[in-house]
């Protein structure tokens, strides 16, 4: 039941994007998000979308997987799109009773929806192609300068790794507990909201208990292997920026510059 969520999952592969340095990937994702929000007219929006779809196809992960990750957010996209189309003031282009679609409203809803979709695509691009461990390792390296302000960067990254590592385990556990309580006649599917929340107590309590048990076991196991935090710790994989990474940086920054040029050449859409 809970195995169908693809948002935020990692799909192992061997593509150009998979092999990029995770630090580079994180930073480039941020740059890409900027270009998405900087695009001010249809042409730059389209160029952006085209580029992102190109990156998506480079990952060699089925497009369906990306669409699946959007399933939950598609509702929000549609909802905000609808709100924007009706609730903007401006020159009317379509009228039906109380419903008035304005020029601005139309543009606005397209821009908002497209930006949301691209946002999800870009973040999926990162999480689909980067294993949780290299992701946290990259974050650890990126926030290392903060150690100067007495922030325990290694511990933060370790906590993130552990949290990510246990998501599938806990999902599996939840499935098992739900089955067990259903076998005892727990009614989890019907009833009003209050009853439904109440009926999840038999699932949540055992889940909490087992999370604590797992945390305790893990802490013990780490201590048995003499784990004592980041000081003096070396890494098995050393991140290096290669020629692929430089290409990726050039392409993404090229896109940024291109979008900025289009923005300055053509008038911005009224929002």
């Amino acid at each position, binding site marked *: 039941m809970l*195995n169908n969520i693809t948002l935020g999952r990692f799909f192992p592969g061997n593509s150009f994007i998979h092999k990029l340095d995770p630090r580079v990937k994180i930073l480039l994702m941020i740059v890409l998000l900027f270009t998405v929000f900087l695009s001010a007219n249809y042409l730059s929006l389209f160029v952006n979308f085209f580029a992102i779809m190109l990156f998506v196809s480079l990952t060699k992960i089925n497009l369906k997987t990306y669409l699946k990750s959007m399933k939950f957010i598609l509702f929000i996209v549609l909802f905000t799109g609808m709100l924007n189309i009706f609730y903007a003031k401006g020159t009317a282009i379509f009228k039906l009773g109380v419903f008035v679609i304005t020029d601005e409203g139309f543009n606005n809803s397209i821009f908002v929806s497209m930006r949301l979709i691209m946002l999800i695509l870009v973040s999926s691009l990162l999480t689909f192609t980067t294993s949780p461990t290299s992701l946290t390792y990259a974050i650890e390296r990126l926030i290392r300068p903060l150690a100067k302000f007495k922030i325990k960067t290694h511990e933060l990254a370790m906590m993130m790794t552990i949290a990510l590592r246990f998501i599938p385990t806990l999902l599996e556990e939840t499935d*098992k507990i739900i*089955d067990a309580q259903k*076998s*005892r*006649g*727990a009614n989890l599917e019907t009833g009003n909201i209050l009853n439904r929340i109440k009926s999840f107590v*038999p699932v949540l*309590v*055992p889940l909490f208990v087992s999370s604590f048990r797992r945390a305790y076991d893990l802490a013990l196991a780490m201590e048995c292997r003499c784990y004592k935090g980041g000081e003096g710790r070396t890494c098995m994989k050393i991140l290096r920026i290669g020629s692929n990474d430089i290409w990726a940086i050039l392409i993404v920054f090229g896109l940024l510059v291109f979008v900025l040029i289009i923005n300055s050449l053509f008038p911005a859409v009224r929002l």
Partner: protein
Amino acid sequence: MAKIEIQDLTYIYSEGTPAAKKALSNINLCIKKNEFIGIIGRTGSGKSTFAKHLNALLKPTEGKVILDGKDIWDEPKEIRNVRFKVGMVFQYPEHQLFEETVYKDIAFGPSNMGLPKDEIEKKVYMACEFINLDFDLLYKSPFELSGGEKRKVAIAGVIAMDPEVLILDEPTAGFDPKSKEQLLYQLHCYYKNRGKTVILISHNMDDIAKYSDRIIVLDNGNLVMLDSPKRVFSQIDLLKSIGLEPPQITSIMQALKEEFPDLSDEILSVDEAVEALSNFVKNR
């Protein structure tokens, strides 16, 4: 009369995705009322998946599960009644405890059935007695108990629903020999004295051989055999080919038979072996 009838049961995990996997294929069998059934098969052979179909936790991809002459999926709204009739104890059931007191936890099943209060109380005490649980523990928190006691509470929670069919998935995993023997004996009583059907999934062939009337052998989602322990465990080559072994004493007797062809090899317990061997020695 058949208590449970399985017709052409096929189950495919995550159907329609690239990860689709056939877990059960085309299983046909009948389980009688008041029968002790053992299910064996190596890890991943589909034992648990099969069991989950019996109390409607999984819906067959194809085929039917018929309980008391009625397809359990005919009325999806009545599915909870199936679960009250067919009780299921999962692996490590102690992980499902959640109430403040042991009493409340055991009463969870019966109160979901909508029974009146005095009836619930009766069932809780009955279940405790059955599983040999100290009444003093009833008003403690389940999280204060030892591992073995927790397991007992969890099993009592299913017994308290008084199911007509009781399924247990590896209930004795991690038990010491004495508690294991006790629990199996109690299950035997549940079947013998109260006329219920018990289905036991286990990797311990000695236990299965000792208690079952019939044994279901699964391999890779297929039904390989459904027969009496004697017949199942005499098929030594077939068992070995699907990664199973007969009980130790049976293996010994089968090895002896190769030396002394007069000996019987359909032997499942130490007592039977002693008898057979002493007879053999006397007659020489």
